């Protein structure tokens, strides 16, 4: 089964109409295309479009071309490594690659070059994937819009005045703008799914512990996972397949066998029970988003799925819980950026304390400082019990909600975000409203369950809207197959952002 081809021949697409990882892989396999051509197309696309999009912080074309040559040679020798061999991807600039920058979107790490690679990157390289460049993000993955990047704004390819979402802003935008067919992001509270939804691409947050965090610059260790972006579900599945599995360098990675995500991907799931949490369809949900999400759910019903009303009674505490747990961990994780060992050091200091204070004060942006202060407060003597410990208790209840719900259903469906992409600048002075844009995505991180955003439709004004599916831990195979059920029926899968034409 192949994807419906786009009928829109697009100059901005460099002649590569079929730009999904599956299609590229098929063309490579048939020797209709070389990896070198893919890299060259990507580089052309980046040079022609990225000045408007702002997805990339750094592009290393020479290295990618060398890797492409090696890939093409492997293939010529009949030794291609699998579905990702020769496929290029962008990498969120918080996932370390040896010899590459890892700014984390922060002044703090300007000029920092990582001396080692994340396990996820190592595994993708072993699968033949070719990292092309470093994607913009909200500083230290804190944000939902790209506006917290110290370097640049990333624009939504569907409407350049709007945010691509965040914090994996450049990852989502680079895929949506067909500059690369896939990307790696990280999801701490929705940082893959929210931008995927706002940019009309597939984005998956794996089960906590499914993908090694080794080499992902930590924001909130107990919540985050590296995960894939792709134009197609197949691409997300292939990227996850390459990355998933136990890593001896990450004590929280789980030693659980990795399912085959690809072989049954196109087989629709039978007797699917889809849980619909009333809490996800209440106040605050944009009516167009609601309509598109309900239509997508209807697609499942028409394929034989049963719709089951469920309750997630503690989900209303998700945002509050998250904004204790995540900043607490962040306040600790970001302590290492002290101006002593690497990264930014203020030129102005008189003693050790002013060296710390000035370096951190000058190099961290306002949102990072806000969260460090929130977290420091929440962990302080006399307050930890009231805030941090309490948040952990509620986190357990939220997890329990999902355990209970999954007794009644196989998947939980709902919106990814309450609204389509908002305008850049619209929420920048209202951090609380910005936090609420993660209201539907945060619970999956608190519970550690996998969740995916798959394109479900477009608003009247042409903004993409994703459907979120969540499933029990380590059921990514099911989640991907379910996402594929929607993708396969969607007439708009080949729809291109207007900015490309």
């Amino acid at each position, binding site marked *: 089964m192949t994807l419906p081809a786009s009928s829109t021949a697009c100059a901005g697409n460099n002649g590569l109409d079929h730009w999904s990882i599956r299609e590229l892989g098929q063309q490579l396999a048939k020797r209709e295309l070389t990896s070198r051509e893919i890299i060259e197309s990507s580089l052309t696309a980046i040079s022609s479009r990225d000045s408007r999009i702002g997805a990339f912080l750094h592009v290393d074309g020479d290295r990618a071309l060398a890797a492409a040559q090696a890939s093409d040679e492997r293939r010529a020798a009949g030794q291609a490594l699998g579905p990702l061999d020769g496929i290029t991807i962008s990498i969120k600039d*918080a*996932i*370390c690659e040896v010899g590459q920058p*890892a700014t*984390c979107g922060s002044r703090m*790490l300007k000029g*920092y070059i*990582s*001396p*080692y690679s*994340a396990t996820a990157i190592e595994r993708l390289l072993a699968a033949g994937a070719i990292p092309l460049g470093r994607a913009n993000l909200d500083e230290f993955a804190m944000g939902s819009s790209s506006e917290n990047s110290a370097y640049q704004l990333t624009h939504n390819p569907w409407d350049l005045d709007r945010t691509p979402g965040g914090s994996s802003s450049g990852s989502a935008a680079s895929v949506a703008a067909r500059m690369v067919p896939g990307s790696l992001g990280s999801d701490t509270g929705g940082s893959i799914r929210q931008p995927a939804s706002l940019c009309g691409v597939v984005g998956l947050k794996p089960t906590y512990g499914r993908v090694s*965090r*080794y*080499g*992902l*610059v*930590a924001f*909130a*260790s*107990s919540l985050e996972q590296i995960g894939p972006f792709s134009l197609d579900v197949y691409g997300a599945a292939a990227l996850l397949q390459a990355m998933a599995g136990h890593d*001896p*360098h*990450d*004590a*929280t990675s789980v030693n659980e066998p990795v399912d085959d995500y690809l072989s049954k991907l196109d087989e629709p799931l039978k007797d699917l029970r889809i849980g619909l949490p009333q809490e996800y369809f209440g106040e605050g949900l944009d009516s167009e988003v609601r309509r598109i999400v309900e239509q997508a759910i209807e697609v499942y019903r028409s394929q034989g799925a049963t719709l089951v009303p469920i309750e997630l009674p503690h989900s209303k505490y998700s945002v509050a819980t998250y904004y204790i747990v995540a900043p*607490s*961990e962040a*306040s*600790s994780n*970001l*302590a*290492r*950026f*002290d101006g*002593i*060992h*690497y990264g930014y050091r203020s030129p102005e200091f008189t003693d*050790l304390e002013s060296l*710390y204070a000035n370096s951190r004060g000058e190099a961290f942006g306002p949102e990072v400082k806000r969260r460090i202060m929130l977290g*420091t407060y929440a*962990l*302080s*003597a006399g307050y*930890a019990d009231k805030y*941090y410990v309490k948040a952990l208790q509620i986190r357990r209840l939220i997890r329990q909600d999902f355990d209970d719900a999954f007794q009644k259903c196989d998947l939980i469906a709902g919106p990814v975000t309450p609204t389509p992409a908002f305008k850049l600048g619209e929420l920048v002075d209202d951090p609380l409203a910005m936090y609420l844009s993660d209201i539907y995505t945060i619970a999956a991180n608190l519970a550690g369950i996998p969740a995916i955003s798959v394109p479900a439709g477009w608003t009247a004004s042409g903004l993409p809207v994703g459907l979120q599916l969540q499933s029990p831990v380590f059921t990514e195979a099911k989640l991907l197959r379910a996402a594929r059920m929607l993708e396969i029926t969607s007439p708009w899968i080949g729809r291109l952002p207007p900015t490309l034409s």
Partner: protein
Amino acid sequence: MKFDVIIGLEVHAQLQTNTKIFCGCATDFTPDSPNVRTCPVCLGLPGALPVLNQRAFELAVIAALGLRCQIAPFTKWDRKQYFYPDLPKGYQISQYDLPFSFSGLVEIPADPAVAGEENALRQVRIIRAHLEDDAGKNVHDESGRGSDSQVDLNRAGTPLVEIVTEPDLRSAREARLLLEEIRLLLLYLGVSDCNMQEGNLRCDANINLHIHHDSGLTTKTPIVEIKNLNSFRFLEQACEYEIDRQLKTYGTMTEIHDRTKRTYGFDPARGITFEQRSKEEAADYRYFPDPDLVPVTVTREQVAHWETLVPERPQDRRRRYHSAMGLTPYDASVIIEQGRPFADFFENIVAHGADPKQAANWLTQDIQRILNERKCGINEFPVPAELVGLILAKVSEKSLTLKAAREALDLLVERSEEQSVSAATLDQIIQERGLAIVQDDSLLKEIIQKVIEKNPKPVADYLGGKPAAAGSLLGQVMREARGADPQVVKGLVTAALDALKFADS
């Protein structure tokens, strides 16, 4: 006015693992080259994650079992947060509310000056022992030219066990004795090399006084924590100084309002303690569970297994050497304090037939002398303990004199330069040198007869009433009959001469 000294210790010991506690870097760093034993994890680079070294946990458990601690079935890791250049992550990975072990006990001799009697014991309760990672070292410019300080992270991530005692110590002397005993214990357990010069064993002392005024009133001085004492002498000196200081400061006060705990340092050059920071500046460490590490659950079976790895504690050995082997407490201690290989050597000698007291004497005198001459430890002593035991067994069964035994040992040491020595070598030496006690009386009698015949003058003198004349005869017989027991020879010579006397009369 009387007063009680109240002291508790926090002892930090580096564990003897091959690699660091949360990464694969070697712990055997060369101190001359900074930052050569480092990796993304112990450098605290962005994105790096810790993974627990199982061996470090095992060694820590063995240390705790040696301290007679309980092992917790569930333990976790917490971040202790503070900024310091030698702490690259901005936090130390330690254990806060659920340490892996708790409630232990160590016994030391009580200070007679406090206990009022000799040979009393002091029971020191251990509150807990927990595991944590060590920091690096800040290297400051000491030339006075004001160059930048530098940071060496070779040591960062070395596993440390922290042992916290109850304030059960009653004098500076007892503090020293406890640290010595803990060091000895950790050495016997084989969990730490306890090299204090390299900072592998160091401690903080918490001290205050309960002052009993003549009025019947008791006041308590504020607790002072003296940080980072890295020798027994410094610990004792610091405690003595601090006791004196507190007595001078608070001795006459009938009310002490400010009871906040203070942090002091010790200046060994001046022999004084000095205040480092007060409570107002004290850090809030903001402990919280480290989300990068998973809690450890320990089964009863595991604890039972680890129990089997705990060797006899030095204290128990000391007691056994005294009660079962008959050594004086002093001799027992001398052997125990030489370390486990030395004590094992001793036991090995005894196991091969040596009399324990004789073995102790030999070890602490003859063998120690040889070790000193050769500047080596007992592990490098060239004669196996079995052989030393064999020599001393021959002394016990009177087939060698002590003098001959010493000669045999010296020769064995000498020969060990060229060959490995065995029981056969020993026999050879005894034979070659005729060291064996000649027990064949008829052979002796034959020699005596010859000597009497060749020496008519001393014989006549003896018979003429000069018993001392027998001495020269005795000497000649001993020269002829090498290795003969002098007592036996003396008896036989006397008997032979007396026989002549009676024959004459």
